[in-house]
């Protein structure tokens, strides 16, 4: 416990130090990066140890805030979320050191590291806070730090817009959380917002439980990125610097998942519809997320929609787990929670890796537009290999880590299909998960293929250069993590036992018993994939040995005798995805501007002019739900514009009148 608190303190402190050296970019960069790396590593050690041992520690310090107390507690569930937070923040500190160098001199790097390390520390605080006020305070610091990081390049109009959308979304979510904690405190009844007090109030929940759960799903879901609260993700993630997108997408979203799980432990036995709700949200988020991702042209926007998809997969796991608890089917519960929780860690690793890859591409090639890139495999081989590992992992293919967590959820689904009560839920889950996995594979074939394979489509792709050393090391570390969890999956799954036991309220020994079949199946997969990797390695070595004595040259691909192929003849991102987008036209509503090859009277034109084809896929919720809603709010709010007359006298009048009315009201 003390070590984690020390790590949090070190993160905050290094942020302040970086801020104080301020405009001296190089020093601030070094201080901030080292602080993020070392602080996170220190915290990671104890988090892993606590997850493995499953013990609970708590510390209470005096803190004079109404209803607040500085009560921090670590249990297996907190530790499980602390691990990805610390891993990704450490690696992003390393990556950011290289990535931010290019901003040295033109931007205040001290401010960047202040907010980055503040974000890391506040996320860790969110995971260990055990008092409602302390939790909300950490939550708010986290939201504000990430807001300032998103708006790091605030000179651009699109970044400002993204920042506002994010700020509005996060604060609307926090408003729900405020009500939630007040309600929990009201039920607990002794005027304390300590989590310990909430834990003891299971029996008194009654009808409040449903309301509290719904508030948690909306409030925490808006941070986690559940559809339809996801609209800030595809705006904020592309706008932020890449290490920040990696941290936000990889672990900040997960604090929302943590919140839902934590609240679940306060509510006692779950209700049936909670499980169905999470299952439904998971399906919708997963499928819509991956579909929207396929239609994107911006690499980071595409990844942002994949975060929605993966949060959907986590929600599927949690929904299955809740159903298992409700139906007293511990196998379902253990596999559901286990898969969901493991996916939290896995998604942090591979999504962090992918965002770093996208950042390296942006850094090296100068653009994120997929259709302007191509052929980067020759110019950025390291980025390419690590991006490929991340892409395979996110598609849920063995032997990488994405497969392990999805495999657990699949197993739960298949187990559910075999039982009469849970057959429908299991079937829907399996079908949904399979659809999500297939579409994700299509999407990453497109992203990887168009960006890294083929020939450069523009000067951007042609002039690209490989990322710097610290960035490469960071990406390699995460790639190693992805492979490692895949190969050592049986042991990793065993490590999860205490956290699963805590979230499902199932005894630890029983959890290990139910995880054993999954572990043994995973062991077989791991052995086979280990052999596969070994064979690949041997083949690569043989190839290298054979080629070592020869000279190799690269030529154009054989093009059926056509003598002047150009880069424009390759598949574009839109054309590659077109079969899928056409299939889901009804959902995606892609609008395209097709050039016309006929004159106004309808007769065909045989020698058409230069033509342009464009396609846009706008977010349905942003365009058709939130935009009209917020416009209406704005129109309403503008009616009160007259109140802000700009005269000091009027403002004093408002204050005086308010006091006056309150006084009269009190004395009446």
């Amino acid at each position, binding site marked *: 416990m003390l070590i984690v608190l020390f790590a949090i303190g070190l993160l905050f402190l290094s942020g302040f130090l970086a801020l104080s050296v301020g405009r001296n970019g190089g020093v601030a960069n070094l201080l901030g990066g080292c602080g993020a790396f070392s602080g996170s590593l220190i915290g990671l050690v104890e988090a892993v140890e606590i997850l493995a041992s499953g013990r609970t520690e708590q510390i209470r310090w005096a803190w004079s805030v109404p209803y607040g107390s500085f009560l921090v507690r670590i249990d297996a569930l907190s530790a499980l979320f602390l691990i990805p937070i610390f891993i990704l923040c450490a690696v992003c500190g390393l990556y950011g050191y290289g990535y931010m160098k290019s901003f040295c001199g033109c931007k205040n790097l001290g401010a960047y590291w202040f907010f980055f390390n503040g974000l890391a520390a506040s996320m860790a605080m969110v995971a260990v806070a055990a008092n409602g006020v302390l939790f909300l305070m950490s939550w708010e610091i986290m939201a504000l730090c990430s807001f300032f990081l998103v708006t790091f390049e605030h000179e651009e109009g699109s970044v400002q817009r993204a920042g506002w959308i994010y700020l509005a979304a996060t604060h609307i979510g926090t408003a729900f959380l405020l009500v939630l904690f007040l309600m929990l405190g009201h039920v607990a009844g002794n005027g304390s917002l300590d989590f310990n007090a909430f834990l003891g109030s299971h029996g008194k929940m009654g009808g409040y439980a449903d309301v509290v759960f719904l508030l948690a799903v909306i409030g925490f879901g808006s941070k986690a990125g559940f559809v339809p609260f996801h609209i800030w993700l595809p705006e904020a993630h592309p706008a932020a610097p890449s290490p920040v997108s990696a941290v936000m997408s990889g672990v900040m979203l997960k604090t929302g998942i943590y919140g839902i799980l934590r609240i679940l432990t306060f509510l006692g036995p779950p209700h049936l519809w909670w499980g169905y709700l999470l299952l439904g949200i998971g399906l919708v988020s997963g499928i819509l997320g991956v579909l929207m991702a396929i239609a994107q042209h911006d690499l980071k926007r595409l990844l942002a929609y994949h975060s929605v998809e993966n949060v959907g997969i986590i929600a599927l796991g949690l929904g299955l787990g809740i159903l298992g608890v409700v139906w007293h089917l511990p196998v379902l519960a253990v596999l559901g929670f286990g898969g969901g929780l493991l996916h939290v860690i896995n998604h942090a690793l591979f999504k962090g890796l992918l965002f770093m890859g996208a950042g390296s591409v942006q850094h090296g090639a100068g653009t994120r537009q997929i259709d302007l890139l191509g052929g980067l495999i020759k110019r950025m081989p390291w980025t390419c290999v690590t991006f490929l590992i991340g892409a395979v992992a996110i598609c849920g293919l063995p032997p990488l880590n994405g497969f392990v967590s999805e495999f657990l959820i699949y197993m739960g689904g298949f187990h559910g299909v075999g039982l009469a009560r849970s057959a429908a839920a299991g079937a829907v889950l399996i079908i949904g998960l399979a659809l999500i996995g297939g579409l994700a594979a299509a999407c990453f074939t497109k992203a990887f293929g168009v960006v890294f394979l083929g020939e450069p489509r523009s000067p951007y792709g042609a002039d690209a250069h490989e990322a710097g050393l610290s960035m490469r090391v960071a990406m390699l570390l995460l790639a190693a993590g992805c492979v490692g969890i895949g190969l050592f999956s049986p042991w990793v799954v065993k490590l999860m036992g205490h956290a699963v036991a805590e979230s499902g309220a199932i005894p630890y020994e029983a959890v290990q018993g139910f995880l054993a079949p999954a572990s043994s199946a995973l062991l077989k997969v791991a052995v086979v994939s280990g052999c596969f990797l070994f064979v690949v390695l041997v083949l690569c070595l043989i190839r290298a040995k054979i080629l070592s004595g020869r000279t190799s040259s690269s030529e154009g691909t054989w093009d059926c005798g056509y003598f002047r192929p150009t880069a424009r003849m390759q598949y574009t991102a839109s054309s590659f995805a077109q079969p899928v987008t056409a299939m889901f036209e009804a959902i995606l509503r892609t609008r395209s501007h097709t050039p016309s090859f006929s004159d106004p009277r309808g007769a065909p034109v045989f020698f058409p002019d230069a033509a342009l084809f464009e396609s846009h896929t706008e977010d349905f919720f942003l365009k058709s739900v939130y935009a009209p809603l917020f416009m209406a709010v704005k129109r309403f709010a503008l009616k009160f514009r007259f109140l*802000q*007359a*700009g*005269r*000091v*006298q009027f403002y*004093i*009048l408002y204050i005086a009148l308010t006091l006056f009315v309150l*006084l009269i009201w009190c*004395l009446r």
Partner: protein
Amino acid sequence: MNLFTDVVIAVLILTNLRLIASSRISACIYAVACQGVLLGVLPLLVGSSHLMVRACALSGVTVMLKGFFFPWLLLRALKSANVRREMEPLVGYTSSLMIGALLLATAMWFGRQLPLPVPAHSPMVLPLAMFNIMVGLFVIVSRAKAITQVLGYLVMENGIYAFGLAFALSEPSLVELGILLDAFMAVFVMGITIFHISREFDHMDTDRLTALRD
């Protein structure tokens, strides 16, 4: 004795009305000065015999500050800032008087309703205090010049002072001294503000600050 207190309080109320109805800044400053002198006399009337020395000291300081020093400061500021001598009200004088009458009625009602820890010396002190606070706020709100805002602030402070006097028997005069210091600081701050406003904007009408709104 009690009759005398009531007369002083009545005159104090009249100075407030004079402040609202006057069209010239210097007349307003004189009204506030008059109010300060009368307020200074008040502790002598409500204080009991064994507190006489303290009451005399308080009274002397109050008269000096509120009756002479502040008005002198303000008159000097008026001269040096070189502004037109009219009030430039945002609410006309007649309607100001009507509102003043309304405020007086409300203050009376407050005086009756407000629960007090100890009974006040005179039933009129509390309404006077409330009326002063309200008139002060009203002057701040309804007059455009920065200097009248200072006047309003002073009148409001007088109200708080009178409120403290209502409990002069049970409360230590430390409170009153605190209030005096408060008012003193406030005049300084306001004086500096006026100086800066008139230097930056070439006048001291606070309503011209609308140019600063977004």
